[in-house]
């Protein structure tokens, strides 16, 4: 039984990691751009397909492929910013619709370029660490390490660098940020690159574990929304905490009951948070 529990903790840590990457990216984009990026799940999918292209087809080393995937998906984010979100900056619902259009395009491109069926990514490593009777494969461990590393880097970037402050300032008050000489366009570009790249890394790192398919984004976007609501929409720390909370609750309920109940519990958790603290665990009350 202790092994069983520990195994579940390992499982939950992995789930928390990649969900945190996705959710933090989504929060960052929402914070700075003020847009609900419905295509965020498809950016995650694009990251996974970057691995298919760079690692499986082109034969590059896995981590090089992940880095290329990061850049590629980050650039997709910049593309979205330039072509969709910038012209629609005063129109958040328009941005939402545009992101749905982008989502459909990405999905179809994946089908046309790679086929309908899910793709195979050969294992990166067959190794694993064992603790008692529980174990953690290296592939999952890499995801956890990448998440911790990237989020730490992001933390220092946001707290210690001028551009980090600019990003946070923009997310908190776009107009006041402009009054400090911060270019909204430039900041938006940073935010879209980072936010998209985080989703892309999540897709790239998990690609060997999930077998990429064109519609894989759908299953994560809903979870990501739940997480950022529980955490409080404007809060990056909240997103991380909520991802961990949600992943543990979901994994434990799935292990001890079943997945549908786990989903209902997840949704109820979110509703409860909203009713008790409508601005989320870490959120600031929405400014009028």
């Amino acid at each position, binding site marked *: 039984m202790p092994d069983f529990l520990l195994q579940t903790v390992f499982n939950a840590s992995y*789930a928390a990691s990649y969900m945190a990457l996705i959710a933090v990216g989504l929060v960052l984009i929402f914070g700075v751009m003020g847009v609900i990026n419905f295509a965020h799940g498809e950016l995650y999918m694009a990251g996974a397909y970057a691995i298919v292209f760079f690692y499986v087809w082109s034969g590059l080393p896995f981590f090089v492929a992940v880095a290329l995937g990061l850049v590629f998906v980050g650039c997709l984010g910049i593309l979205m910013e330039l072509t969709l979100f910038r012209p629609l900056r005063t129109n958040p619902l328009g941005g939402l619709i545009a992101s749905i259009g982008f989502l459909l395009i990405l999905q179809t491109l994946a*089908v046309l370029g790679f086929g309908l069926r899910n*793709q195979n990514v050969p294992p990166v490593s067959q190794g694993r660490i064992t603790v008692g009777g529980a174990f953690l494969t290296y592939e*999952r461990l890499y995801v956890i390490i990448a998440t911790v590393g990237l989020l730490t880097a992001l933390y220092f970037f946001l707290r210690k660098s001028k551009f980090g402050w600019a990003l946070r300032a923009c997310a908190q008050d776009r107009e006041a940020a402009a009054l400090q000489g911060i270019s909204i366009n430039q900041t938006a570009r940073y935010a879209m690159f980072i936010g998209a790249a985080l989703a892309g890394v999540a897709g790239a790192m998990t690609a060997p574990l*999930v077998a990429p398919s064109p519609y894989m984004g759908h*299953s994560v976007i809903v979870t990501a929304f739940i997480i950022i609501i529980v955490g409080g929409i404007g809060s990056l720390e909240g997103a991380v905490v909520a991802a961990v909370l949600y992943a543990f609750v979901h*994994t434990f309920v799935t292990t001890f009951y*079943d*997945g549908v109940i786990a989903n209902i519990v997840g949704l109820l958790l979110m509703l409860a948070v909203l009713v008790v603290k409508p601005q989320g665990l870490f959120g600031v009350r929405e400014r009028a």
Partner: protein
Amino acid sequence: MKSASSISLTRRSLLTGAASAALLPLVGMPKASFAQENVVKVGFLAPLTGPVAAWGKPGLDGCKIWADWVNEAGGIEIGGKPYKVELASYDDEDDAGKARTGATQLIRENDVKFIMMLGGNSWPGVEEIAARQGMMVSTLLPSDLTPDTTTLIAPCEVHPIYNVTGVDWLAANHPDLKTAVVCAQDDALGKPSVATYLAAFEAAGITMASPPLFFDPATTDFAPVMTQLLANNPDILCLDTCYADYVQPLCEQAFQQGYKGKIISCTLDFYQRIVERTSKEFMEGVIFQFPDFDDKALNDPRINFKKPNEFFAEYVKRYGATEWSAVSWEYSSILDLWADAAQRAGSVEPADVLVAMKEGGKGKHAFGDARWWGKELFGIDNALVGDWPVVVIRDGKATIAEFRSIPDWWDKNGQLLVKHMTDLGQMWNQRT
């Protein structure tokens, strides 16, 4: 009513032509075929886009090969005249409303004589149109059958009944295995399949180590599912009719969590990848139900599927190996059956073909002669069952171990299947 509708039909089609010319210049009306030869059209109504497209699109691709081959050979001969076969497809997006629109278009505008569907979510939208128009429709999901659906047939994959053959074979060849666990996604495909496996295990004297585990179709991480499944150290791990996206991670998880027992599954798409991601040793002896079509055992004379090895080669050549799946051949095998019946009937009219097809209660299923069956389960004998292959992974390659008879199993253990189907609410008269 009849005469009135035929009058209005001509007037309406005139108006339709005028309107489409005037209002919708971009909209192509179904092309009328003025070719010299006779043409018979067959409809393909299944999801071609969206998450369920993997259950439709590869089938349409397979049917194109089938039609090309038949037409290159001069078409099918009906009543002494050669007919070319044309496919008309409509993307139903796995939605009842779109399927209804599509069925109307295929029947009343494209004039098809037979419609192949995936079934499931889309079928209820088509049911009444098919009944009123007397259109013969095939489904891959026999759970669509009811006593009222007289023109609906399940002539190829009588999912999930054939799963009994795998368990039967396993019990005969590995009598030492005593306990099993089963998991499936919680949906219309998973549930009846679980009932079938439960019945088959019970018939084989294998007990369940824990109750069946249903997981949400949106599951992305299968580690917790597997952790729970393996908690009671079962001898047999049954993956039921899990979708391909689930079977692979489930097998990997079983491998990683140190499972040493037997695995049995309904499908094992892309098993080469799973072998690659686990090990040949781990996957040795895994049992499932869908052979590779380059398997030499399919050249056996009793197999009715035409040129299976060549078909597989052509499919891979045209669309790539990764697009091949069970549905790639299933719709084509239905076309075989249909063409054979039409030739015997000397007519392409749905009613005639259906009579010819069901004549004597026997039919030529892809895997051999079979009988029309299903009254006890579906309320109607419109499912074609016979032998079904038991496929075993040997040295990293799927090989047909044996063709086993579904009817034989049913004659001995039918009441068990009915019991478990009833328990899970899967009998036709339990469905709402």
